[in-house]
């Protein structure tokens, strides 16, 4: 039992500190927002140090309810990074209009605890509790700008559709429990080992549907563009980064560990979802005029590619998904750091794509950074965004799914169109009104780091990150 508590130390740290921080903001009021943000980042850092599985191979807590292995460690570190950056980028974005409330970092911390539970879930109920903690925090975050009707609408939409998805998930869990006799992943796997019955198949489909909602894979993507557009930009950045990593890690763990014996059953679902996501994410983005909606479709598109790695069903596939999410996290956060700087002279945030016209002449550095992220998201070498796609397709080919790789790769051309359209608008068009200068030095620093990461210099990190992800993926098998 003591061991179990040691294994959930990061969650304990985050829980205790988020409760303390919640009390602090109740007493100190909204002016303590910056202090609480920094303390929240500190809590994440502290938790990151104690993540089990970083140095050793980790272990299983509470008789299998909670798994603290290397896979979880890898995904958790990514999630903590995403959460910390999301906190830091919000601090200066909200701060301008004095509308920054101190609950923001606390809500992100709660969501992070939920994500940690999802990643480490060894049982369908742990999974559900983690997912709900994340979801409830997310609903509040989406409607964080109370005075903005779009934000409130986003929160409500997210809540209604999210509740529906939770229903799916619970129904799937109950079916799996009913037909396999266990909620433990290992128990479910045992139950599936003797062939997949009709009921078990239904359970698999519903559980996957619930998770697909969280990663916004087609056909459960409908909420994404609306919520991304309506939510305040830093919140959108958060939604697009850390929860995607956590849900994708959960997807890998559920499919590989709980449904491993039924690979043939879920593989076709995943393949359909992957291809539908890459195609829809590419086609639907073309007509968008709002940069946040465009990035919503971009994240649908990217999730589709990551799912190709899941479909491979191998250790290489799992490693490629982890690598994909690591690079995706940086690219997305980097892109949003640019989006957060899109403000008119009056300080109002601008979200239209046309406002980027001629950015290369008014703000060359910002334009270069965004161009790099766009080419990187499109997967054009020599930017780092090429490598995750490369590994995913490599895993698919190695798993004898060459046709899937060929079709998937062909669909990436559709996506490339709108990414290079952004570059066209910034570099080829006549300049529009310049954005206001930003004095957000933290943001500048983060932007610089992420731009350098996706630049060709990032190739130096491919080998270390990939060997870490291979190692992490190894603990699933």
């Amino acid at each position, binding site marked *: 039992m003591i061991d179990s508590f040691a294994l959930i130390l990061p969650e304990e740290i985050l829980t205790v500190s988020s409760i303390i921080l919640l009390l602090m903001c109740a007493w100190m009021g909204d002016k303590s927002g910056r202090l609480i943000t920094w303390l929240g980042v500190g809590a994440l850092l502290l938790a990151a140090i104690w993540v089990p599985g970083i140095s050793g191979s980790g272990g299983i807590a509470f008789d299998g309810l909670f798994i603290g292995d290397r896979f979880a460690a890898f995904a958790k570190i990514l999630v903590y990074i995403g959460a910390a950056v999301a906190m830091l980028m919000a601090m200066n974005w909200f701060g301008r209009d004095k509308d920054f409330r101190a609950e923001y970092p606390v809500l992100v911390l709660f969501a992070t605890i939920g994500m940690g539970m999802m990643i480490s879930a060894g049982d369908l109920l742990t999974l559900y509790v983690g997912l709900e903690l994340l979801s409830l925090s997310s609903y509040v975050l989406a409607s964080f700008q109370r005075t903005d009707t779009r934000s409130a609408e986003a929160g409500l939409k997210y809540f209604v559709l999210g509740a529906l998805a939770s229903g799916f998930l619970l129904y799937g869990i109950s079916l799996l429990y009913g037909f396999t006799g266990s909620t433990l992943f290992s128990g479910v796997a045992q139950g599936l080992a003797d062939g997949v019955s009709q009921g078990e198949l239904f359970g698999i489909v519903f559980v996957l549907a619930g998770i697909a909602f969280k990663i916004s894979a087609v056909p459960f993507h409908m909420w994404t563009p609306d919520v991304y557009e309506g939510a305040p930009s830093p919140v959108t950045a958060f939604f697009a980064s850390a929860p995607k990593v956590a849900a994708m890690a959960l997807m890998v763990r559920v499919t590989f560990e709980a449904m491993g014996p039924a690979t043939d059953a879920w593989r076709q679902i995943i393949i359909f979802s992957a291809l539908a996501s890459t195609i829809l994410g590419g086609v639907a983005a073309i007509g968008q005029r709002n940069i946040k909606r465009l990035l919503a479709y971009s994240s649908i598109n990217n999730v589709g590619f990551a799912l190709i790695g899941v479909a491979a069903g191998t250790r290489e596939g799992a490693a490629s998904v982890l690598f994909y999410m690591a690079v995706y996290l940086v690219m997305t956060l980097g892109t949003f750091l640019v989006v957060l700087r899109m403000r008119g002279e009056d300080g109002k945030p601008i979200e239209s794509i046309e406002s980027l016209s001629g950015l290369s002449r008014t703000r060359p550095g910002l334009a270069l950074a965004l161009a790099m992220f766009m080419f990187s998201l499109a997967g054009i070498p020599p930017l780092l965004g090429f490598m995750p796609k490369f590994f995913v397709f490599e895993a698919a*080919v190695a798993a004898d799914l060459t046709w899937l790789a060929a079709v998937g790769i062909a669909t990436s051309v559709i996506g490339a169109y709108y990414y290079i359209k952004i570059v066209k608008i910034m570099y080829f068009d006549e300049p529009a009104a310049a954005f206001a200068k930003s004095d957000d030095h933290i943001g500048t620093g983060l932007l610089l780091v992420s731009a350098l990461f996706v630049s060709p210099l990032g190739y130096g990190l491919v080998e270390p990150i990939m060997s870490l992800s291979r190692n992490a993926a190894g603990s699933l098998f």
Partner: protein
Amino acid sequence: MNQLGFPILTTLIVLPLLAAIVCLYLSAHAARWLALVTTFALLALGVLLWANYQIGGAQWQYTENLANLGAFRWAMGIDGIALMLIMLTLFLMPVCIAASWSSIEHRIPEYMAAFLLMEALIIGVFAAQDIFLFYIFFEAGLIPMYLIIGIWGGNNRIYAAYKFFLYTLLGSLLMLVAMLWMVNHAGTSEIPVLMRTDFPPEAQTWLWLAFFASFAVKMPMWPVHTWLPDAHVQAPTAGSIILAGVLLKLGGYGFVRFSLPMFPEASSLLIWLVFGLSMVAVVYTSLVALVQRDMKKLIAYSSVAHMAFVTIGLFAFNRQGIEGALIVMLSHGLVSGALFLCVGVIYDRLHTREIDRYGGLANNMPIYSVLLLLFTMAAVGLPGTSGFVGEFLALIGSYAANSWVAFVATTGIILGAAYMLWLYWRVVYGTSRNADAAAMPDLNKRELASLGAIAAVVLWMGVYPESFLAPMRDDVGHLLARIERAAPAGDAQLQRGAAPAAQSPHGGSEHAPAANTPAEGGH
């Protein structure tokens, strides 16, 4: 490490990259000079590279294996074919910079940076010894070219930039899947090893088609050539030079390096496809070139026709054909680059590419007219110029493989003479039709230096092609050794004649006149 004691190929890639970054922070004037100095320094390194290349030495020279980049290695090395193409690139780059000296008026630091980046990436393509590293360089070239066409191009530049980017991207992505399969099958991503690997014949066909999708677009072959006229017409002069001079060679290089040695059986099986498309290209694009009113478009279509000679020669499966194709690649790089430069010279003065706006330039631009005549003749394939050597060898080779292909291809030479000479006649001869065209000054020193340098090399290659063939000879031999087992039977049934022993020291000279007759019909 190599015969020079330092990693020269990496230097050739890193140096322009660094210069490109520095360029971005300089003033327009300083950026021009930095770019020019860098390209000349690289050319000097290139001369060193060629001078120290050991002809008849190891197949792969200057090999480097510097770093592990996860899925692949930073492995470099060149054979004679790559050496020649690298030299072509290094030679054309200073010309490009000079051609943009005053004709590019805005955003000069970015422009120079894009060109230097382009140079680094192209050298990387030719020098890469790891198949994925090759792919990265191959694909990365899209980014600077997209920007060059889109920012500094003509009126319809954005459409052309999109078309160029998406066309070539789709082609190369299928190739990536094929590469992944091959590496998965062979267990290594080293190009030299893959070139010796025998892939199962049933898989070869698919792999070959995937590579073909990429190289045919780059080449470009009919019917996927339509991006080329748009890109050429809209690109700035230097963009056209680099596009026609070097980027089109990536397709041919791909066939030599990948399709033929790695998939000989599939190459033999699908030879009808290559020959069919090439024959259509030669005749069709030559006819299209005849009716063009825009000079750049005319030369762009002629490029498609010339590239068809390359594919015909390469798939002839014999030495003459392959060597001829390689020389056509080099020669076309020089000649079409020079022709685009010639168009650029008068475009800079009159800002139109309409053929009808010019006429009688011989009166006011005599030096220009002489040089243009030389390049026109080289494009037609007049003996003594580089164009003759390559086309002649390629046709000899193709005759041995398939006499019908040789016959149809030769009509392309006749048509080539027609559209090039007609172009020359309309632009240079006759009387001036427009006062502004008649008032144009002759070449300035910068233009003369660029065109003169290319002219010298064109004549050198035409008179003494051995300098260029010698480094590639062994590599063609290695290639032949790989593909001979799959070579399809030719229909020409050439036999060694019973010539008197003392008179004919050259083996196989009997069939030369046979192909020679139609070939000379075009001149």
